[in-house]
């Protein structure tokens, strides 16, 4: 089939540190779920649980009192709720990009981080889906979002981008979950076969579905993986495009632009990679995975952040140009107001975080500086949150009629809802890294020199298409 060509055959060098054998991969990754959790994990879990408590309390109060507890007001109908929705959905995109798009491009380095990033996608989309559910204000009417008739027998309007959004995000969540589970089946089998207690054997055994590594199975499995990657690639591009339609199809200066879909997708990948980086640096340190998630992986991720950050910067500039070029007074005013009006602080925070901070990554020593990349990854996520805030609030707060102008003030409940979703996210994430193999064991093994049947047997006629670098790598393996 050739979708899992050996690493030498595509002319790449080893991705893990020398001496990292197949056995070491199993021991290291499966060991995380088998050994007692490090103290750091318990500390983080306690913090995550307390934020989950904040979430529960806030949502309870929101249900009791209604969305009036938020700062949303007359001109600013969409505030932090939709900002947070777009931000969380965007974060999810890196996971699909890593698992699907990089797979189609045969980027073997993705194997070290794809499981992790896919899990992040699923949890981020869960956090995102909370917001459309709660911002309707009447939770018992949340079914209005679904293609169901209401009490008068009226169906939702299929020409509305809000309905498209439901289909896009719902499909995205379902397909991401399927993709993630398919990838996990062989690794659950590894955990099942290593299990020492009956509970672990039962649970992992059930999840592994009786996987026995049969090559007759791998054949269909690899095809399924390829098909899922091919389906997820246009899907991930569609999701944030459809999210941007929520804005772009409205006749609202500052929202009504054609650049929105690609601009939103680039921003989504940008923020997603930043979030993967933040989490990865912590987990890699806590669980000692430096030999599997190497500096090379981090360096490549930083390059992607540099590219997408610069794309986002281009979109910011192009928005201004288009506003001026359109000749529309309202359009021009919204953009001048965005940069120099009452929300100038948010606008320039966004520009410094998203456009300026990734420019450090032009320099190799900065790309390989762990404290610096940790700080920049957090700065980027703050900046991307501001981007959504700026788009939503600055476009709304000064309407066509100056009499309806206003200013948005977030309340303590806005802040608590947002912080609460971090509790949801990190609780799920910490449970994931504790109980599920956080690195794709089977996929990483397949990239090793040992996995190449020709390299391990010293075949001379192997890999006619190998790049010049390959023979050197062969020598190391033998």
């Amino acid at each position, binding site marked *: 089939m050739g979708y899992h060509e050996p690493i030498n055959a595509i002319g790449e060098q080893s991705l893990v540190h020398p001496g990292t054998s197949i056995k070491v991969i199993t021991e290291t990754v499966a060991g995380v779920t088998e050994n007692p959790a490090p103290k750091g994990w318990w500390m983080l879990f306690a913090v995550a649980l307390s934020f989950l408590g904040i979430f529960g309390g806030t949502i309870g109060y929101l249900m009791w009192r209604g969305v009036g507890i938020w700062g949303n007001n007359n001109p600013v109908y969409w505030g932090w709720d939709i900002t947070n929705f777009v931000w969380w959905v965007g974060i999810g995109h890196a996971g699909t990009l890593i698992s699907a798009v990089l797979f189609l491009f045969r980027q073997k380095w993705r194997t070290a981080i794809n499981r992790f990033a896919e899990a992040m996608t699923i949890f981020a989309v869960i956090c995102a889906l909370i917001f459309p559910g709660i911002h309707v204000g009447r939770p018992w009417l949340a079914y209005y979002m679904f293609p169901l008739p209401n009490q008068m027998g009226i169906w939702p309007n299929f020409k509305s981008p809000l*309905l498209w959004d439901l289909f896009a995000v719902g499909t995205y969540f379902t397909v991401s979950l399927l993709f993630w589970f398919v990838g996990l089946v062989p690794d659950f089998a590894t955990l099942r076969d290593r299990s020492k207690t009956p509970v672990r054997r039962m649970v992992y055994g059930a999840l592994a579905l009786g996987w026995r590594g049969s090559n007759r199975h791998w*054949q269909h499995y690899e095809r399924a993986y390829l098909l899922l990657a091919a389906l997820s690639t246009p899907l991930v591009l569609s999701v944030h495009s459809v999210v941007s339609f929520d804005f772009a199809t409205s006749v609202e200066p500052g929202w009504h632009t054609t650049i929105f879909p690609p601009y939103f997708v680039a921003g989504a990948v940008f923020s997603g990679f930043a979030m993967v980086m933040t989490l990865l640096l912590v987990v890699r340190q806590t669980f000692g995975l430096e030999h599997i998630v190497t500096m090379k992986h981090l360096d490549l991720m930083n390059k992607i952040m540099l590219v997408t950050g610069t794309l986002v910067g281009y979109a910011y500039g192009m928005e201004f140009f288009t506003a001026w070029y359109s000749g529309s007074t309202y359009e021009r005013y919204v953009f001048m107001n965005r940069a120099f009006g009452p929300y100038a602080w948010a606008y320039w925070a966004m520009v410094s975080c998203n456009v300026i901070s990734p420019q450090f990554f032009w320099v190799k020593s900065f790309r390989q500086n762990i404290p610096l990349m940790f700080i920049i990854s957090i700065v980027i996520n703050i900046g991307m949150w501001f981007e959504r805030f700026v788009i939503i609030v600055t476009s709304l707060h000064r309407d066509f009629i100056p009499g309806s102008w206003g200013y948005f003030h977030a309340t303590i409940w806005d802040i608590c809802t947002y912080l609460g979703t971090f509790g949801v996210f990190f609780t799920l994430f910490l449970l994931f890294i504790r109980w599920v193999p956080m690195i794709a064991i089977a996929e990483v093994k397949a990239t090793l020199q040992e996995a190449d049947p020709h390299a391990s047997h010293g075949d001379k006629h192997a890999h006619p298409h190998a790049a010049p670098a390959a023979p050197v790598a062969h020598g190391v393996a033998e």
Partner: protein
Amino acid sequence: MSAEAPRRAPKKRVALVLAEFDTTGDVLHAAEKVREAGYEKWDVHTPFPIHGMDKAMGLEDSKLGYIVAVMAILGLTSAISMYYFMNGLDYPIIIGGKPGFSPPAAFPVYFELTVLFSAFGTVFGMFHMNKLPRHHHPVFESDRFAAATDDKYFISIEAEDGKFDVEKTRGFLESLHPSNVEVVEEVVS
């Protein structure tokens, strides 16, 4: 009746012969020999897919794509008919002077449902073709087989194969330079 019967050893029969290999190269070359010897009901068990193994085993290309293609068409037609029924037939509402059912207007919904149905077809089609979930298989009776999801590679030849003969098959597998060969029995009653 089982109460009066003394505890006897469970009845067993030979299910398969299992050969264990240490490297991917060894198992690949052994698989070529097994195919050349004319066995049909046999399998290779590896912790990850090995490049070239499908060819070595002489497997045909996966037909999964056909299932997915059917599901994709089904997804697209479901989306269009759902839109037609809800907005065009059952309760048309005029918004912005546009017709209730206007095919290009709901394109994102068509796309998403096509992808959703295709993904279901891919995942459940794959498990169907692999006959999974199947939690019991005689190969799991071997104590050494747990390494098949770690760092060892196995070839199993099943007793149901037409050419199968315990001693001959065992001898044949031993000639392929495995690190271990065992006869695996399953409990019948």
